[in-house]
């Protein structure tokens, strides 16, 4: 009998070893070519291995997006910790980062040696222009998912103006506009309307 019947169940009860966690994240770190690593994490952890359930994954992703840190590394920490505590978190983080970090170490050295050759420069300029398109589309898609209403667009605009026009530091804008936006969305008391 196929195991399709229990696809939307939560994490599988059997224990996952630290080695398995490292291996799984290493594989994702080495094969997630193109697009968001989060999608690859979901396919592997929720889909293929069933180490976390759908709802847990969505919740952990939302924590990852709220906190500072790369979404993929935060997710690795949170999932690793859920599966096997502190060693699991460390194994997941190392696994997901190692392949890309090693690759970029080599790429960096190569870039340093050949980056100013005319043919290489021409390619790199094309790559950079293409990356601008990729960043644009990624940002648009994220915005479409997480922005609600006009007031959110105001906060987006304030952050952009602060960093790109006024050249304030990202920290200043994060704290300033962040505090404003959090205060705007502050918890309302249950007896709302009669107060103030």
């Amino acid at each position: 009998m196929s195991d399709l019947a229990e696809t939307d169940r939560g994490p599988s009860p059997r224990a996952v070893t630290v080695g398995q966690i490292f291996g799984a994240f290493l594989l994702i770190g080495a094969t997630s070519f193109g697009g968001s690593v989060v999608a690859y994490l979901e396919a592997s952890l929720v889909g293929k291995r069933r180490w976390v359930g759908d709802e847990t994954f969505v919740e952990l992703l939302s924590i990852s997006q709220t906190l500072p840190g790369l979404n993929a590394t935060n997710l690795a920490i949170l999932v690793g910790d859920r599966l096997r505590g502190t060693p699991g978190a460390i194994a997941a983080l190392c696994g997901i980062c190692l392949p890309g970090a090693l690759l970029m170490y080599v790429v960096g050295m190569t870039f340093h040696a050949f980056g100013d050759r005319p043919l290489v420069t021409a390619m790199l300029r094309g790559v950079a222009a293409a990356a601008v398109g990729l960043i644009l589309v990624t940002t648009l898609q994220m915005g479409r998912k997480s922005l609600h209403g006009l007031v959110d667009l105001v906060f987006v605009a304030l952050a952009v103006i602060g960093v790109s026009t006024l050249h304030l530091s990202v920290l200043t804008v994060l704290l300033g506009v962040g505090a404003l936006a959090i205060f705007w969305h502050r918890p309302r008391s249950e007896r709302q309307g009669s107060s103030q």
Partner: protein
Amino acid sequence: MNQVPSLLRVFAYLSLLTVGGGMAAFPELQTLAVNVHHWLTAQQLVQLYSVEQMAPGPKMMMIVSIGQWAAGFAGAAAVLVAFLLPTSVLAFFIGRLWTRLERWPWRASIQRGLAPVSIGLLSAGFLTVARVALTGVVTVIITVVVSAILLRSRANPALVVLGGALVGLVALR
């Protein structure tokens, strides 16, 4: 001069700015790595980031290259630890507290409020990259075509960016 202490300081600071993704810290990364410490040029920074879009794993591992240029292997290792450790420790502890914070009414306010701010920071990062990368008609055309392809199809972004390299080879020499 030994750059490792500066690398540690700069990348630990940058890591705390990456709310919503690595791109949120990009304007500050450019200010500190290019203008303040002269580890590389703005073009090199943007090109490194762009090349990484064809690599697997979390984007922003290209900071390893910056560390390597500035201070060799020690620099690369320092940058990686400085950039990953603070936010990972934070994620670890907040992750454990999270369920207990469920009844804290500000939890939802923080999530709700930071979402648009992070999109704003990502947009500012986009503008920083665009200002450096878009140098003429050909580059703008590449950006527009790539955006259209990614919006309208399920093409693998790594391959689309690779296509940009080929177009550059022909048209940007």
